[in-house]
Structure formats: C-alpha cells, structure tokens
C-alpha cells in the first residue's frame, strides 16, 4: 500500500482546520502568568502565558490590545480570553487573545477601594484627628523587618543626620499573610510600654499584592487609636496603602521617615552657636553705644543744659497761666451782662409790674381769670387783685 505524502503547508493547514472547527478551542479562558512580554511597534502584543509546568505563546492584535486598560508587565497574573489556533507558517499553536483581565489584583483593588471609602467616611483620615510629631523625640520606635535593607537605611540616615539617635525596633513580618497581625501587635506593644515618642511603620517597595497586608481594616483602626503618633513609610513614593492614609504622617520612603524624625545635628549646633554669637555681638555693640553717649554728654555743657531746660519750662507755664486767667475774666464779664439782660426782661413781663400801673386782675370763684364781659353774669362773685391786696365783689 502506497502511503500518501503531504507537504508541510498542507499538514499545517489541516491541523489549523481541525483546531478552528473545535468549539471548545474557539473561545476559551485561560489563567496564567505573563512572561516574555513584547509590545510591538505595530500595536500588537506578543507574550507567553505560563503556569508552574507549562507555557503557551500568545498574541493580541492591536484592535483587542487597545481594550486593555492596565499596564502589562512580566510576572503579572492574568486571565485571558481568546481562540486557540495554529500559525501555519511555523506550525505552532497559540492563543489569539481577545480580552485580558488582571487576576486577583482586580478583587484586591476593589477591596482596597471599598475599605478606603468606608474609613474615609468614618473620618479616620481627617487631618483634624492627626497627632503632631514631637520635635527631637527622645526615643523612636520602628516596626519593620529586622532583616533587609529598610532597617539599615533608617539607621544609616539617622546616624548621618543626628548621630545620637535612640531607636527601638519591633521586629515584624512585612510580607505575606500576617503583616497586619504583627504590625498591630507592634503598635499595641509600643503603646503598652509607652517608651517611644513616635512610631515608624516601615517597609520597602513592592507590588500592590506585596503591600496589600497594609490595607487592613483592623490595622487601620489600631493606627487611628494609637496614643503615640505614627509615621507610615510603606513602599515607594507612588505606592499608597490604607496605612498611609490613616497614619499621622506619610513618608514617601523609609529613609524619608528617618529624615522627618531627626533633624540635622550640625544644623542645630550651628543654630545655637550663631544665636549665641549674634547675642554677644549685639550686647557689646549696645554697651559701646551707651559708653559713647555718656562720653559725649560729659564733653558738652553738661551743667548749663538742665537749667536752660527748666527755665524754658517755667516761661511756658507762666504763659499758659496768663492765658487761662484772661480767658476766665472774659467769660465772667459775658455771664454778668447776660444775667442783667434776663433780669430786666423778666421784670418787664411780670404781672406785678402791670398792677402798679393801676390794672387789676379779676377771677371767678374757681380762680379762672376773667378777661371779657361775657364771662360774667349778674350775681357772680368775683375776686379782684390789686397791687396791695384782694377784694371780693358781686356783679350787678
């Protein structure tokens, strides 16, 4: 029996056809880790998806690649959706990727956002509730891993800046599942011992997942309730955790936290010395000026000057007295003439004055003055007032 012989391209074409007919392979979701990621200038993405034991090549064409909203990196765990098919040119099968979502991160990020909103609403991030840091703390507590670069960085920076730092390290797990638990214990311990004036929670940079232990609600509340002010120095400047928001101060890096806590020793010494020297110089200048003043006074006509001053004042006082005396006289004269005017006016208007001229006043028995004839009738009793007395009469 003669065997039929096919060309390579015929085989590849056939295999591709088999793949493409298979509905299972037509639309499939795969979980894996991205490796060998390359973004081609044409806009297509090429990468390999792998798990512990296997890997598969993937391609994502421009049209689909544009729908991916996050930055893709090697090592990222993702879920992709697409078709498994064959590239005829070299006979490799690969995934033609249509969708990509970050695995895990999506869920974690959602949890982070939700916790952030919850605590923010409760007021745990309010500036008003933040404690101020002590100046030049007697002792600084550090919650961090006792191994690794972070604790060394902090020690080196404080050593360089201040030299005489007093640090107390609480060794904590800053990676993995029990981050929150050990950091909480550290905060509790320092608050119970009450032997440090400020606490730094420090951890080096890492991925969102690496730092996720610092997005813990219990840890956030422990930080909020701490009596000792807390500086959060978790990750790099661009990494934000709940721990950063709730702490009294956020340092962009652990080294920066050390700089926030300890001033530069040389600056302090220079300051003290300069204030002292300025004070010395100023007081010496001041004394020199006073001496010079006394010297000049002695040289001037010291004896004469005070008398001149006194005499000047005397003249001034006399002039003032004289002026006031004149004014008083004038006022008195004015008052007198005004008084006389008023008296003569009153005199002229007095009814008594009229009576002396022979007029009389007639009143009825109620005391009302009778000015006209129609106010009386025959038989009325009237009282007439003369200049020297009163007479009662009856009208006829």
């Amino acid at each position, binding site marked *: 029996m003669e065997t039929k012989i096919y060309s390579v391209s015929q085989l590849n074409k056939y295999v591709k056809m088999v793949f493409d007919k298979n509905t299972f392979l037509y639309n499939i979701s795969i979980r894996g880790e991205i490796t060998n990621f390359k973004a081609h200038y044409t806009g297509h993405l090429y990468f390999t998806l792998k798990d512990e034991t296997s890997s598969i090549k993937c391609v994502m064409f421009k049209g689909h690649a544009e729908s991916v909203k996050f930055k893709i990196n090697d090592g990222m765990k993702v879920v992709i959706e697409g078709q498994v098919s064959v590239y005829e040119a070299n006979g490799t099968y690969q995934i033609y990727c249509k969708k990509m979502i970050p695995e895990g991160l999506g869920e974690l990020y959602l949890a982070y956002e939700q916790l952030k909103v919850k605590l923010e609403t409760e007021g745990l991030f309010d500036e008003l509730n933040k404690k101020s840091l002590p*100046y030049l703390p007697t002792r600084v507590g550090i919650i961090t891993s006792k191994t690794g670069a972070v604790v060394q960085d902090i020690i080196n920076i404080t050593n360089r800046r201040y030299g005489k730092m007093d640090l107390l390290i*609480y060794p904590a797990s800053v990676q993995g599942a029990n981050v929150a638990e050990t950091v909480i214990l550290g905060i509790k*311990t320092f608050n119970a011992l009450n032997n440090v004036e400020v606490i730094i929670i420090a951890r080096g940079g890492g991925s969102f997942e690496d730092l996720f232990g610092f997005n813990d609600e219990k840890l956030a509340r422990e930080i909020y309730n701490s009596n000792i002010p807390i500086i959060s120095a978790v990750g790099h400047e661009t990494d934000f955790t709940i721990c950063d928001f709730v702490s009294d101060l956020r340092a962009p890096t652990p080294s920066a936290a050390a700089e926030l806590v300890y001033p530069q020793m040389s600056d302090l010494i220079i300051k003290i010395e300069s204030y*002292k020297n300025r004070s010395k110089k100023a007081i010496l200048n001041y004394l020199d000026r006073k001496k010079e003043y006394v010297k000049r006074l002695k040289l001037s006509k010291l004896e004469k000057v005070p008398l001149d001053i006194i005499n000047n004042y005397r003249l001034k006082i006399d002039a003032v007295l004289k002026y006031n005396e004149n004014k008083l006289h004038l006022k008195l004269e004015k008052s007198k003439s005004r008084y006389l005017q008023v008296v003569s006016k009153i005199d002229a208007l007095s009814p008594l004055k009229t009576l002396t001229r022979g007029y009389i006043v007639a009143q009825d028995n109620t005391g009302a003055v009778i000015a006209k004839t129609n106010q009386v009738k025959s038989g009325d009793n009237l009282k007439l007032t003369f200049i020297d007395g009163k007479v009662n009469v009856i009208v006829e």
Partner: protein
Amino acid sequence: MKNETFEKSLEELENIANELERGNLSLEKSIETFEKGIKLSKECSEKLDKAEKRINILVQTENGLEEENFIVNE
C-alpha cells in the same frame, strides 16, 4: 531639659538674638536678656552633648519582651 522645651528654647534663643540686635531695650533689660540667652544656649548644647546613641530591638524571651542591642551591619 525636655525635648519639647528644646525646640522652644531654640526659638527663644533666636528671638533674644533678634531683640538684642534691634537694641531698643533698656540697659538693665538688655543685660538680663543677654544672660538668659547665654543660659539657654548652654542648656541646648548640653542637651545635644548628653544624648547617647542607642539602637535596641525588642525580643520575646521566657521572661516576656526584653530589649537587646541591635547589631548593625555596616
């Protein structure tokens, strides 16, 4: 000298230097202020001199938490 007073003392020291440089105080007040300044600068320097470097780590022992000297890797 407490630490919070260190900051205040430093501030006061600066104010004293400024005040003396202005030279508007009476002779007696000037001398008094100057003496206070010298006293403060001495206290501040002493505070810095007296501080000692110490780096400890909390260690869980059978007697509870204890402080141990932390070995720094240079």
